[in-house]
């Protein structure tokens, strides 16, 4: 009888020990293991992404990207390119030997609250005067001159009608062009550190190559002093 009680007690004691240990030690540890395991999995993915990003960033030619940014900024500026637009049109018309004038700008607000990543545009119209071949060449060059422009309307009028006998070289034409000018504010954020680096696709690289063929002109920088003179400044 005593042995039977001893046997039952042993089984009971082992059962209780296992139960207590399971509830107090094993279960919390097991939960921690599960949590850690899933966290490590996520960390491994994050680390792989970071390593990949570092690799890609290291592979980028710093001088080349700087040059590309400068080029893109000149062609597709972040702010309304009013001054440089007039400057470009003037220089292009001089190069193409056409007389430029009668410009009508509708730039709207100069200092506006630009939403990042949103393309903006404004219309302009202007007249050019010259021979047909020069006007044709100007029109061809216009869409390869900064800032980014798209011809939308065009009128071509013969200025000095000379009749049938008049040669093309002496025939002057006036052309009124309606053009849309584009610009876009830069993105405000570059995203999280572990976000993959946005790489340029083949098509986008082709666009960059196309930008290289743009005719760049000397930029106009406002040099006039602004504001009142500081009367209290030391000599």
């Amino acid at each position, binding site marked *: 009888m005593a042995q039977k009680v001893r046997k039952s007690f042993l089984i009971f004691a082992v059962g209780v020990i296992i139960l207590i240990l399971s509830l107090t030690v094993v279960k919390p540890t097991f939960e921690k*293991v599960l949590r850690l395991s899933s966290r490590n999995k996520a960390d491994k993915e994050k680390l792989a992404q970071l390593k990949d990003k570092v690799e890609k*960033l290291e592979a980028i030619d710093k001088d080349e990207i700087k040059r*590309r940014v400068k080029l893109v900024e000149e062609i597709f500026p972040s702010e309304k390119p009013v001054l440089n637009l007039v400057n470009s049109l003037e220089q292009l018309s001089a190069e193409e030997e056409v007389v430029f004038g009668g410009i009508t700008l509708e730039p709207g607000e100069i200092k506006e609250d630009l939403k990042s990543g949103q393309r903006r545009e404004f219309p302009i119209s202007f007249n050019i005067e010259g021979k047909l071949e020069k006007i044709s060449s100007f029109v061809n060059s216009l869409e390869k001159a900064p800032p980014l422009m*798209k011809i939308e309307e*065009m009128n071509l009028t013969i200025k000095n009608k000379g009749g049938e006998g008049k040669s093309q070289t002496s025939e002057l*034409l006036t052309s009124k062009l309606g053009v849309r000018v*584009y610009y876009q504010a830069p*993105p405000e954020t570059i995203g999280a550190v572990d976000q993959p680096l946005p*790489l340029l696709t083949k098509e986008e690289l082709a666009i960059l190559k196309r930008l290289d063929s743009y005719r760049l002109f000397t930029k106009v920088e406002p040099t006039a002093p602004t504001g009142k003179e500081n009367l209290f400044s030391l000599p």
Partner: protein
Amino acid sequence: MTKDINLLKEKVAILRKEARKAFFLQVGLLVILIGYCLTVVVLFSYYFILKRQSSSLEEEIRVNTNKVEEFQTVETQQVYLKNKIESLSDVFADQKHHQKITEAVFTLLPEGISVSGFNIDDKGGVSFQGESDTFSRLRAFLDNLKTTYKIGEMKVERIDIERIFFDYEKGYVFKVYLLFEV
């Protein structure tokens, strides 16, 4: 000849059987306890391995994050380029098309023709009004239109002369609609 008489033989057998049962029970319980303890040890060891792995991963992430931050300027420039060029692609597609149409119309125009109301639509069509002070220039233009199926890369799909009339001030006035294949 003596003969042993064991009166406790059966009892001894029962006691031995019970002792064996008790032994197996004890051994069984011990095995279960040891097995359980081993599982706990394995669980703890795995937990510590994971913990060490976690801290090593965290360290590596920190190092690589610092590296990425060192390249922040390059990353900003890359994001800037991507953002701007994405926007440029559809303007360029449109611009290229407009440019080709404008060039094509210039090729078609003979000397002495004035053009007004030149407009390009989304379908690849261009409409304009032309003026010519002499009939021969108008005819040269119409002949050009008649024989043109392709200008440069642009294939002409349809040519409509919408109207021709004579104005005493402007001369011969005509309205044309050209549809290019997109």
